[in-house]
């Protein structure tokens, strides 16, 4: 590799940020500053190249310190890793939380996605435009936003839908002086203005942080959410006092094959959307002769309307640590990665602290609980990319690349992270695994229905009285879920429900009796997806919502394959023409065009993003959600 890098222009702060991740080795041989006298090339070598996977942590360090990835900072990072600058720029420019042009040190990301939209996010954005100017990315080209120390941008879903409308504040600066990032929800105009003025803002007393099913008295049926709100998320002792680490103890008693046998008996299906049997996945990895195996917890929850994994990580972080440890044990993996969404700074801080606490108490490391099993967990932070939730894209992101998914086969059990046999599950599935071990596979299989066993988390948001995270045994109907959330807000008529997230489908009031099981929703051509139940009353502008979804997919497409890269653009344009009342040809022509795009995206895209990018649009069209404009505010 013939690197041309210019590390000379990095500022002192940038060097310190990069060295903070990679360690201080300022010798020329490791990419440090060279003097004219040494006359040598930067040498990388095998050991240095193996650090490529640290590119994202290094870019985060630069972004957090100086507010953007400058040519000098990137050059220094490239010299130290070593990575070709063009490739590193390709990575930095892929993620929405990294800036490759100068930007104010404080940037407020204002969620204007589907759930917050039902909570007045669009009006908030309009008001912000009037009061403090347009979002940073809508400034005239070339015109810098000036010396302002703050700015705002629109953001896709920030995963605080039950509290919305939400904002995320990204603050750059010296470590210890200013916080890295923080979420605020609900964030009314005053709060956002205070944040933009540089203040910390004070969270107004809003709804309870995590309203749950039957908040008082507490529902004894809660399993995955058993400790949420009861156990102290910062205390390992509190976690153990509430039943923590019993599952791992039982796993060690059962042995790896015993764990997988219990999982087989439980008939647990993955909660990430594909509903793949967890036991089969783990078994495939455990039996793979290639060593070492790896396990990954996918906590890159980015599906708009979804916040369940965030709640679990914030309120019960040790659960994730214990479950990943069990997974490593069953799959024969010495190492696990926990990839947390970049927009979840609080959750990341909690799980990082939980990992450290577990390590200090011998629950990670060598000889866990007196066994011969050793395991380590590394927490990785995403940087703003929905597509990184796709498993192969997530691997590439951990490896230090652009989060571009690849074709399967080969499946992760054969070739996953770093080309190793890898098992990957999301936070909710791992929570179910703990439950399986706690009560036994057969008892778990007795919960729910024959084909959908156990309990499921539902993220209820939108126009309901009590938005929140609800846990139900499979078999509960859509109507029951909405009723337990207090029904439609203000007793208004229900117009539609977005089921499963923006990669899911809209269903109408006629679906209220449908049992929310894998098989039940499949029968009506829908999917549970990530458990999103976004309730829309008769005041919601259907076409506006669908256009936001189309915008989301265009923004989040990785850009690799043609059907998704260009198809999502054409889909958004067709909807914009319909909204403007200027269809190309007749409205039927536009529908035909949308249908064709939907078919090609579903059939020919590389990954699930493109394959589902037209589902919600298509179902909305079928339901006539485009047609009737809202009757106006009540």
């Amino acid at each position, binding site marked *: 590799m013939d690197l041309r890098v210019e590390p000379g222009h990095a500022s002192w702060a940038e060097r310190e940020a990069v060295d903070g991740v990679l360690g201080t080795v300022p010798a020329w041989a490791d990419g440090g500053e060279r003097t004219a006298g040494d006359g040598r090339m930067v040498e990388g070598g095998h050991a240095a190249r193996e650090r490529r996977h640290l590119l994202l942590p290094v870019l985060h360090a630069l972004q957090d310190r100086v507010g953007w990835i400058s040519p000098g900072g990137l050059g220094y990072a490239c010299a130290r890793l070593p990575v070709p600058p063009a490739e590193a720029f390709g990575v930095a420019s892929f993620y929405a939380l990294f800036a490759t042009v100068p930007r104010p040190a404080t940037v407020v990301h204002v969620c204007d996605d589907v759930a917050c939209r039902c909570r007045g996010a669009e009006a908030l954005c309009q008001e912000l435009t009037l009061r403090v100017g347009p979002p940073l990315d809508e400034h005239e080209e070339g015109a810098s936003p000036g010396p302002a120390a703050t700015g705002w941008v629109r953001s896709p879903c920030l995963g605080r839908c039950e509290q919305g409308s939400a904002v995320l504040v990204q603050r750059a600066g010296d470590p210890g002086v200013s916080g890295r990032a923080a979420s605020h929800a609900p964030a009314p105009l005053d709060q956002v203005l205070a944040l933009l003025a540089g203040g910390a803002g004070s969270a107004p007393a809003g709804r309870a942080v995590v309203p749950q099913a039957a908040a008082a008295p507490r529902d004894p049926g809660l399993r995955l959410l058993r400790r949420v709100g009861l156990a102290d998320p910062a205390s390992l002792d509190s976690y153990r006092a509430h039943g923590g680490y019993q599952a791992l103890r039982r796993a060690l008693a059962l042995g790896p094959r015993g764990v997988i046998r219990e999982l087989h008996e439980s008939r647990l299906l993955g909660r990430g959307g594909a509903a793949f049997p967890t036991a089969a996945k783990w078994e495939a990895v455990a039996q793979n002769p290639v060593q070492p195996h790896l396990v990954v917890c996918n906590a890159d929850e980015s599906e708009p309307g979804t916040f369940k994994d965030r709640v679990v990580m914030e309120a019960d972080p040790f659960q994730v640590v214990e479950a990943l440890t069990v997974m490593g044990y069953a799959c024969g993996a010495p190492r696990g990665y926990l990839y947390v969404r970049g927009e979840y700074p609080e959750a990341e801080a909690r799980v990082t602290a939980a990992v450290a606490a577990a390590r200090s108490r011998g629950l990670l490391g060598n000889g866990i609980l007196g066994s011969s099993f050793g395991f380590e967990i590394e927490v990785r932070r995403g940087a703003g990319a929905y597509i990184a939730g796709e498993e192969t894209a997530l691997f590439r992101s951990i490896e230090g690349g652009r989060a571009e998914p690849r074709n399967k086969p080969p499946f992760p059990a054969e070739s996953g992270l770093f080309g190793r046999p890898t098992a990957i599950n999301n936070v909710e599935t791992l929570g179910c695994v703990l439950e399986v071990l706690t009560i036994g596979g057969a008892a778990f299989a007795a919960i729910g229905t024959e084909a959908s066993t156990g309990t499921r988390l539902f993220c209820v948001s939108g126009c309901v009285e009590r938005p929140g995270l609800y846990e139900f045994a499979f078999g509960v109907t859509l109507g029951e879920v909405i009723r337990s959330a207090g029904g439609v807000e203000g007793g208004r008529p229900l117009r539609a429900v977005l089921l499963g997230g923006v990669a899911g489908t809209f269903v109408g009031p006629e679906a209220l009796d449908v049992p929310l099981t894998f098989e039940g929703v499949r029968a009506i051509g829908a999917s549970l997806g990530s458990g999103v139940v976004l309730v829309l009353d008769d005041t919601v502008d259907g076409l506006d919502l669908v256009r936001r979804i189309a915008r989301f997919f265009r923004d989040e497409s990785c850009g690799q394959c043609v059907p998704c890269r260009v198809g999502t653009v054409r889909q958004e344009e067709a909807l914009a023409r319909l909204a403007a009342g200027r269809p190309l040809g007749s409205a039927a022509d536009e529908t035909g065009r949308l249908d064709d795009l939907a078919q090609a995206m*579903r059939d020919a895209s590389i990954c699930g993003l493109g394959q589902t990018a037209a589902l919600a649009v298509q179902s909305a069209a079928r339901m006539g959600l485009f047609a009737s404009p809202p009757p106006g505010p009540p």
Partner: protein
Amino acid sequence: MTASFVAPPRRLVTGTIDGRPVTVPEGTTVLQACRQQGIDTPTLCYLETLTPVNACRVCVVEVEGSRALVPACSRAVEPGMAVQTDSERVRTSRRLVLELLGSSVDLSLCAPEVRRWLVRYRADTERFGPAQAPEAARDAARPGHHGPAETGGAETCAQPVKDDNEDYVRDYSRCILCYKCVEACGTDAQNTFAIAVAGRGFGARISTEFAVPLPDSACVYCGNCIQVCPTGALMFRSEHVMRGDGRWAPERQTVTTTICSYCGVGCNLELHVQDNSIVKVTSPLDHDVTRGNLCVKGRFGFQFVQNRRREG
């Protein structure tokens, strides 16, 4: 003494393509099997000498039992696999891929077979409305953000030609993002890594770091990216200038294969000559030594041939 390398024997697998049984060695891709059968399968991002990235999706075929279509270029034939290469679903997806590309980039300098496929799949590249140049500079696209959706037509990748060095120009309004140039610049051939894919979604683009001009990048001007570019987005500067002047006349060109005179490697050169002047240099993909790759001297160092005022 000559040594010949004998590959370990490969198991044969049998599947069907369009109902006809096909037996190929294990590891053979569906595309290779189709080509053996004489089935014309369109490809854009595929090239024999590069790792398949299966990004263009124009080669998709229908495999029985598979929910989505699969890319023929990178999926190996499996025992019992039943492949359809001309079903309704396949034709629709191929047509849409061509229409989507045609509506966003300038395909006019593509190879003749691309025009043939456009006709064969009845691709109507105008169906998404008149082409609309993007409002913001493509190099300034921010990941996860874009301006208001176009209502007057189809947003394109139109942008000025990047003409920043003496050897070749980059006209990314013709770029279909097939990744071939990135692969040729990277581990598949040159290992220079001067360019990579930057940005994401419709804002994805081939770029140097911070879009610096090529002379400020790691580019070594081997021109292997030009060799693999299927759309004319990367072009010899000589060709670009002659096209601009209206002097480019392929019908008056001859191609002479010769061996590069610079060093002892023995790379094959194909000299494209028009009006007794070399106008561009390519290299045959199937040549053992070069596999289509050259260095800056073989690719661009031909002016001395035409220097008729050499003394003595």
